[in-house]
């Protein structure tokens, strides 16, 4: 019984491997590169002919004149994603959260501003966290805070039909718009 089944086992393993492990992913790659080249190559964003990042991947903006992303367990290393994996009763996490919350008025620290994302690469922040950064960015760039708040609102992604998805702001796109603003002024 065992010997008789060796041939189908081996042959089908190799045939199915060739079909699902080579033909299938290569065919999808072909279709993807032809039909959706931008997405298939990582939704890269170019600025002045330079790749400045991916629209989907967060980056570690730190300057006062840029909007900052969420805390990241991996420092926005897009070649090695990861979360903190700290649990609810972790003393490390509790003190990290408390330290980050210092920058905000009591009871007003947006949760995304003081917690690390799952991937360490979350490209978005909440509208509340973006709003909390408007004053700093406006001061650093000598911009009108109300005008900047309007720019943030313009770059806030709302749920489709008010239902599907979450309200959020893509940090890289917002920062690109900020730089474009500077270019217009000069």
């Amino acid at each position, binding site marked *: 019984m065992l010997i008789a089944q060796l041939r189908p086992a081996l042959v089908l393993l190799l045939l199915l491997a060739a079909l699902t492990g080579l033909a299938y992913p290569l065919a999808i790659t072909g279709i993807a590169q032809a039909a959706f080249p931008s997405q*298939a190559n990582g939704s890269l964003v170019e600025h002045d002919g330079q790749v400045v990042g991916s629209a989907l*991947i967060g980056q570690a903006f730190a300057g006062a004149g840029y909007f900052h992303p969420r805390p990241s367990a991996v420092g926005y290393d897009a070649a090695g994603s990861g979360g903190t994996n700290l649990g609810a009763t972790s003393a490390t996490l509790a003190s990290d959260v408390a330290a980050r919350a210092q920058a905000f008025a009591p009871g007003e620290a947006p949760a995304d501003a003081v917690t690390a994302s799952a991937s360490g690469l979350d490209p978005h922040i909440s509208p509340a966290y973006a709003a909390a950064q408007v004053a700093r960015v406006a001061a650093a760039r000598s911009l009108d805070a109300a005008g900047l708040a309007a720019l943030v609102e313009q770059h806030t992604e709302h749920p489709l039909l008010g239902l599907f998805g979450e309200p959020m702001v893509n940090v890289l796109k917002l920062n690109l718009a900020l730089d474009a603003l500077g270019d217009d002024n000069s």
Partner: protein
Amino acid sequence: MTWQGWLQIGLVLGLVAAAIKPLGLYMAQVFDGKRTFLTPLFGPVERSFYRLAGVNAQSEQTWLGYTTGVLLFSFLGAPLLYAILRLQAVLPLNPQGFAGLSPDLAFNTAVSFVTNTNWQSYGGETTMSHLSQMLGLTVQNFVSAASGIAIAVAVSRAFARSGVDRIGNFWIDLTRATLYVLLPMAVVVAVVFVALGLPQTLAGSVDATSLEGASQTIAMGPMASQEAIKQLGTNGGGFMNVNAAHPFENPNAFSNYLGIFSMLSISAAMVYAFGQIVGSRRQAWALLSAMAVLLVVGIGAIYWAETAGNPIHLAAGLDPALGNMEGKELRFGQAMTALYAAVTTGLSNGGVNAMHSSLTPLGGLVPLFLIQLGEVLPGGVGSGLYGMVVFAILTVFVAGLMVGRTPEFLGKKIEAREMKLAMLAVLVLPLAILGFSALAAVLPQGLAGPANSGPHGLTEILYAYSSAAGNNGSAFAGLSANSPWYNTTLGLAMLAGRFAYIVPVLAIAGSLARKQKVPASSGTFPTDGPLFVGLLIGIILILGGLQFFPVLALGPILEHVLMLAGQTF
């Protein structure tokens, strides 16, 4: 919790419910050997496969022959995958130049993918060459899922037949599940995934220079093709370390909906196909409603616990509006994170879109508990159905004891032999989970693993062995599991959870196929009504729940109480 969140949950579950009947009928047709709309396309491929493999398309196997086929196919697949992983450095399609995997990691990964567990002791983007992802992992994503479907079909046939010792041909069921079910769906889902933003390229990574002048290396690869079958085959092994929490694997709300829909649809439709094959669609709906009740309660519990947030953090001055956001991605929100976490563990998917270790204690208890219930809600493709059939057999047995009649299920008398085999199957899970967890909780090699202290550390260990033995694959990822101790023992737990379960289940199928169907009489306990559904839910909770309750009390439940008291570790 918001009505908008529940609406999204309802939308995804509603789409799955709508897919159950057409997909289930289609699958029943496929495994009956009938013509389908894909036969003109795949018929010639199928026939040439049989010719090359020496398979007679008319022949069928006894349960022993079928089981031998399943085991042989898996035990040949594992060394092939092991070899690819060990040798990836000298094989093509390795743009990042990754080294071969260590022996214990390659063993763990090979076992993990062959058993449809897809536990990741490795970080994909830092370990795996594209060839390993494609020819190694993607292949097992397909064929381990197809094997699960095949076994479920064989079990279904056993109920439909009378007085025969044949339950089908594994090689034919395996080939048909791949060609007519998994592959066409994967092609469609993969292309939609690319349109939604998943990369699909043979390049390894791209170097970007940020607006601030910092350099960032962005890893990518053939991800959409892997992600599609990862979801459809309830495999769950991600291309990236953080799985479907990675913005490339799951870039927006819509890829998240599609991912969850893909996970659920085949497993749920498999139950309908079972009903169709055994000639009782009402039975299918009865099983599905038991699954749905438990799953929706699980979703609600996680959603509630996570929106309530962590009082220790709230005391530090957080705005409670977003709930507990540690280890979560903003684009999913609490509702879609809760749905994903419950579905991935109610099934045996094991992909994650949030870090389960950073869920609140009760939010993390639910996924752990759903795995320990045996992943039958609706479970892995195939494995969920045959797991549920075992629970149904136990339920009619208990009902039979209450009234003093020989239990029957779908016209088959359930006797001593079937009961012994069913008990053997359900004992595998507690034995592997509690046995290995107990060892790891006292041995220094085991205690070196957890990253968190206090009860959370115990939960990390418990979750790992539950995930491995349940062939789930999700993790409380604080555990440093890439060590010889964990790689080896988790590998053994995965093997036990898959094969020590499959063999008794197929033996039950063999024994049932031989029995004559007895016509229903006034004394027959109807198994398609609400009474049976309630009893079935009770059996799942009592069997699954009670045996794990003591250790859950020491892990997540204790942590919850300590969190409320403001205690940290």
